[in-house]
């Protein structure tokens, strides 16, 4: 009971509450402005969290991401431009509803069922994480090695429609993580004699460069005309929500469940969860012909899915230290910075921190409703915020955040190079998320591989000897060979026909 009370005190104090409120406003603003993503919001937050206590820092991250994911629905609904990737799946549907004069229903269901999905995902996190953590206490380097490999395989195969390009980005992330002396042999790698590189390439400058500076660069070079806002009045967003809950209970549960599961898969986040839920909703609907014409059913299901995925992604992040998506990859970086190293021991040695995280998730999803309502009220003004004023401000925040950590011009250089490279590669269809997964997971993968090799005396069979490691190993190998198996099966079917 004492850790629980301690957790309540950690969350419900003046400083943390103030940070939660400020982060809510920040997350809602960034999510609602087209062109600024939830990932960018978190990347910009990281330098600020560096100067906070661990729980306020986590409060800022949990609240910002939850709010930004919901707020992404607003420009989708009124401009047909999803504010974040997680809203893209049902943007056309929401826009069609707005054109038909039902913007309040589209926005209201996005808001209410996002909160419901978020709470569902949190409940699963609360129940599943400690059980998994207890199980994971028996894990050795063999299990972790396979788990990381399986995770990154999922990230490339599931979350990317371009596995080859995703794979190259992951390898680039591994390579970045290899720079410096942070390796089991403590040998300086790829430093070229530079003392700045001995400690490796900073995670933070790279993160800000890839997810914030690159987006500023893209917006600065974008010549497409600004979309026009649907100028129809928005009524009471809560009107009819109870009726929709009674009408579509199965869709809410299904979206929340699928979202949590997809979120928990390493590499697949809110956006994939929303796409899968929307597709499933249409497939199982009694009125599939209405989809695309301004029908709320898909919005309810995928709106619940994208926010439940957010909590689901924290399960592998907290239990194994393996990020469920890009947002949790950033969070893991912050956890390490705050000496709250993720892993099963986090649950046994610091239970109050875990309880505080649970409380934060519940609180963030509850306050999303009044904050979201207020944001919808001022939505039209938010969507017309002049981009040419906003971009320089964001860019200054990027530089100050990067530079302020070590007062290092070198770090600003890294941010700039990472931003330019991310911009060019994304323009050419390379997904950026696997690179950040590579940076986070590269050192873990190498460490567990080297440990396992030393323990097994170089005997590869040892990697499969322990039951869980064996199962994970076989699953990983199957995931690698799956494209070949699928091709072979298709060929066989073709020849039989």
């Amino acid at each position: 009971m004492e850790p629980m009370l301690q957790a309540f005190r950690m969350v419900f104090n003046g400083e943390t509450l103030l940070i939660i409120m400020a982060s809510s406003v920040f997350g809602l603003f960034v999510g609602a402005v087209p062109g600024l993503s939830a990932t960018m919001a978190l990347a910009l937050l990281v330098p600020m969290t560096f100067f906070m206590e661990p729980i306020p820092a986590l409060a800022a991250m949990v609240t910002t991401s939850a709010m930004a994911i919901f707020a992404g629905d607003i420009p989708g609904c009124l401009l047909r431009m999803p504010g974040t990737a997680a809203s893209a799946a049902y943007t056309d549907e929401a826009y069609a509803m707005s054109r038909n004069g039902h913007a309040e229903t589209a926005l209201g269901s996005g808001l209410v069922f996002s909160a419901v999905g978020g709470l569902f995902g949190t409940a699963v996190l609360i129940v599943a994480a400690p059980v998994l953590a207890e199980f994971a206490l028996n894990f050795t380097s063999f299990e972790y090695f396979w788990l990381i490999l399986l995770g990154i395989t999922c990230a490339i195969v599931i979350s990317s429609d371009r596995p080859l390009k995703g794979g190259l980005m992951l390898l680039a992330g591994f390579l970045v993580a290899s720079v410096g002396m942070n390796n089991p042999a403590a040998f300086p790698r790829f430093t070229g004699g530079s003392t700045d590189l001995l400690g490796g390439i900073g995670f933070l400058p790279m993160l800000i460069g890839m997810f914030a500076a690159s987006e500023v660069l893209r917006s600065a070079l974008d010549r497409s005309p600004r979309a026009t806002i649907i100028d129809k009045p928005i009524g009471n967003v809560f009107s009819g929500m109870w009726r929709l809950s009674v009408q579509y209970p199965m869709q809410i549960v299904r979206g929340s469940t699928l979202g949590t599961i997809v979120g928990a898969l390493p590499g697949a986040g809110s956006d994939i969860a929303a796409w899968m839920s929307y597709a499933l909703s249409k497939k199982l609907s009694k009125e599939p012909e209405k989809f695309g014409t301004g029908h709320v059913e898909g919005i309810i299901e995928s709106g619940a899915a994208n926010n439940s995925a957010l909590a689901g992604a924290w399960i592998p992040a907290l239990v194994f230290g393996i990020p469920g998506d890009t947002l949790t990859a950033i969070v893991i970086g912050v956890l390490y910075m705050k000496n709250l190293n993720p892993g099963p021991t986090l649950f046994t040695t610091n239970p109050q921190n875990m309880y505080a995280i649970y409380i934060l998730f519940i609180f963030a999803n509850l306050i999303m409703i009044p904050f979201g309502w207020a944001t919808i009220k001022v939505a039209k003004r938010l969507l017309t915020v002049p981009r040419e004023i906003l971009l320089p401000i964001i860019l200054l925040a990027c530089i100050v955040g990067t530079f302020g950590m070590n007062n290092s011009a070198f770090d600003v250089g890294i941010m700039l190079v990472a931003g330019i490279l991310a911009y060019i590669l994304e323009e050419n269809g390379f997904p950026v998320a696997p690179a950040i997964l590579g940076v986070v997971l590269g050192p873990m993968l190498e460490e567990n591989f080297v440990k396992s090799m030393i323990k097994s005396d170089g005997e590869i069979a040892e990697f499969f000897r322990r039951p869980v490691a064996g199962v994970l190993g076989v699953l990983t190998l199957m995931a690698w060979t799956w494209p070949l198996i699928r091709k072979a099966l298709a060929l066989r079917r073709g020849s039989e026909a």
Partner: protein
Amino acid sequence: MKIHDSILGLAFAMLGLAVLLTVSGYPGMPGQDVGPALFPGAVGALMVVFGLALAVRARRLAMSRRLVALGDWAGSPRHILAGLSIILGCLAYALLSNTLGFLLIAPPVLFVWHLAFGVRMPKAAASALLTTVVTWAVFYKGLGVPLPWGLLKTYAF
């Protein structure tokens, strides 16, 4: 800016090759089969394979014949200027902030960015000053980020 996949694939393959060459000179760990070269070496080798696969696939698929195509921005001097100002502004801040101090370097950099993004001069000046003060208050006073004082060190508070 579109670059043909065959070029990007070859660039990755060459990077992988450079990694392999670099790690070939790394020493082993005493008494162990594994050393500092193993992980980056495996990454480099996979990069060569994936990069070549991308290049070969790009040649097979009927992709555009143009090897490099600049975006729409290349036709607009204002957009080129905006892109360049981002790069030069970041560099200026990195190189001059410790000498001049945050309060002296941020306003001109912000002012130039605003102008490059198409904001009129009076509005750009007002926004640059206001943003500097707010950023300084939030980061320096609020969060304790050590923003440099530079030439204004004697007036630091």
